């Protein structure tokens, strides 16, 4: 029984970690700008495409990985400056539409550059290695992801709680206007938020695409949405919440993917039920349930609406 569940559990934890890295970007941006950055999933995808092209140009790995991360952070920064900053005082809906526009633009640009074909992700020696745990064979990346995710999250939480810029971020997410009155340079804080979010999405993309091995212009959409759900689940604005939410979603989703096999092996079911179809739907059903039952999520703070 356990041997049947283990591979799904492992890949669930791994995918959960990757979602967590994307979810942090959502939750931080939402915390500060109250904006669902629809383009964040596409930044993640662009990071994957960048890796494909940079490593194809023959640059060695120890240079290409940092290069990808830096460019991805730059992309996040550029998006903020071009598409969100001019709309700072516009109605919420305008910024959201702008975010959707950016997402559409990034996808179409990548479609144009790649010709709409699946791009094979370069294999990164150490993390693509196979390892065997019990009776299950998996890749090194499965084991590295949760560890790396936790390390990065702890670093981020330390940054938020113990540095000046972190304090500024907390202040801005608490009250945008007042923190501006207190002399916090809002634009700098927002820039740092986008850079950190995109950087982590870049790390996530390296781990994710090593697992899935191909990138196409739409590969960012689903992980992006799921990561957003994770962020809502954990309580939007809360970094640890986003991480917990992402792991839960990753694990549940993968268990559902394997549910048919698990049920058959456990003798509970005679035939394939096709539950796999619902592994994506599950995430959104979960979203709707959370929003109704506990809109603030697991660790979210209650917001009061001012008239």
């Amino acid at each position, binding site marked *: 029984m356990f041997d049947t569940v283990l591979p799904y559990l492992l890949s669930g934890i791994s995918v959960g970690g990757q979602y967590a890295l994307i979810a942090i970007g959502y939750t931080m941006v939402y915390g500060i700008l*109250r*904006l*669902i950055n629809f383009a964040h999933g596409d930044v993640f995808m662009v990071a994957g495409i960048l890796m494909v092209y940079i490593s194809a140009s023959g640059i060695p790995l120890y240079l290409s990985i940092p290069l990808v991360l830096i460019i991805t952070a730059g992309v996040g920064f550029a998006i903020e400056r*071009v*598409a969100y900053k*001019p*709309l700072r005082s*516009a109605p*919420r*809906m*305008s910024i*959201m*539409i*702008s975010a*959707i*526009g*950016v*997402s*559409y*633009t990034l*996808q*179409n*640009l990548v*479609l*144009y550059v790649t*010709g*709409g074909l699946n791009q094979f992700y370069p294999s990164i020696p150490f993390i693509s290695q196979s390892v065997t745990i019990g009776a299950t064979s998996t890749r090194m990346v499965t084991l590295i992801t949760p560890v790396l995710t936790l390390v990065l999250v702890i670093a981020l939480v330390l940054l938020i709680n113990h540095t000046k810029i972190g304090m500024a971020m907390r202040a801005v997410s608490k009250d945008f206007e007042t923190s501006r009155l207190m002399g916090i340079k809002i634009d700098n804080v927002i820039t740092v938020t986008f850079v950190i979010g995109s950087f982590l999405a870049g790390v996530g993309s390296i781990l994710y695409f090593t697992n899935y091995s191909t990138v196409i212009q*739409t590969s960012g*959409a689903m992980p992006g*949405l799921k990561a*957003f*759900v994770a962020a*809502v689940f954990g309580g939007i604005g809360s970094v640890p919440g986003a991480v917990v939410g992402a792991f839960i979603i990753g694990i549940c989703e993968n268990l559902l993917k394997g549910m048919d096999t698990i049920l058959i092996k456990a003798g509970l079911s005679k035939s394939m*039920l*096709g539950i796999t*179809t*619902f592994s*994506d*739907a599950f*995430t*959104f*059903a979960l*979203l*709707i349930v959370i*929003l*109704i039952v506990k*809109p603030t999520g697991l660790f979210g703070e209650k917001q009061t609406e001012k*008239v």
Partner: protein
Amino acid sequence: MIQAQPTIKPKKLDAATIITIAIIGVVYLLAFVLEQVMPATSMLFTVLKKGATYALVAVSMNLLNGFTGLFSLGQAGFMLIGSYAFAILTIPVAQRLSVYQYYDGGLVQFSLPWLVAIVLAGLFAALFAFLIGLPVLRLKSDYLAIATLGFAEIIRAIFQWDKIGTLTNGSNLLRLFPTFADFNVRDESGQVLVYWSTFVPFVIAGVCIAFILMLINSSYGRAFKAIRDDETAAEAMGINLAKHKMIAFCTSSFFAGVGGAMLAMYANSVQAKSFTTAMTYEILLIVVIGGIGSVTGSVMSAFLFVASSEWWLRFLDQEQMIGAWKVPLLRNGFRLVVFSLIIMAVVLFFRQGIMGSRELPDLFRKRHKLAGKGARKA
């Protein structure tokens, strides 16, 4: 609830209204006449048919996003329901065995006339909207957007589930149902006598849009706008938020469902996997380009969008030579890049879109309220 003004004078038709009616009449006449005289294979008719479909869907989305201020991204999901309902209900009984070849002819063993099926398509979409609206409409702006987006994804997954394949044909195509081309009157040899295949979608879309316009101009419409402008104030004025939001949501979905049925008739086949989030985004962008809060704008930009993407900007996707000089950049996908940039330009610099919140008659009236920066196109 807001009551209608106690004394409504019978409106006199002013010049602007008459010009508007004349323009609409000419458009319909042209749609009919052109189809009789031009070759049926012309791209123009593809654009007009698809344009009419998208115009309806865009207006239905505008009703929610522009007039009620509910940012919903579930349009593709409701279109999917409409498409499927229409296709399932209208495939002729004799053809069912070949369409549902993996499911022994499927569950439904009757077929309805297209008009009934189109209304039912809308009703099914509205029913789903009601069910999903009960929990979801309590959410605020961006949460609502994500929840409806998620709902559209769930619908798409469920319709492809092979356990309900006897109804939906699993992930296989639904086809052989009546299409726009079937409206053409033919003689025995199959020669077309009168072409109706463009006029009929125009009529369907026209009737539906007229209904939406009447709704917007009714006391309900005023309540919708009040909710959009300030929810709390609207509630304080005695508007029942839950009820009005639900009415807007269900009406919008009804017409999205009808639009879905029209899309099925346009495309000749239905498959769940084509109703992606990208489709919703496209419709949203049509609404934005047209002007959030303008029905005329949505209609115009729907036709512009479809014409550009299917016809005018097609050349961007092929390599072009000017003399011996090969134009750089042009290859597959460039059209969409140009498109995206236009859209970003509209979103960032012309936030009012083509029409802002004006309607067609407003263009012929004195410009006393138009001193906005969005009033760039007349």
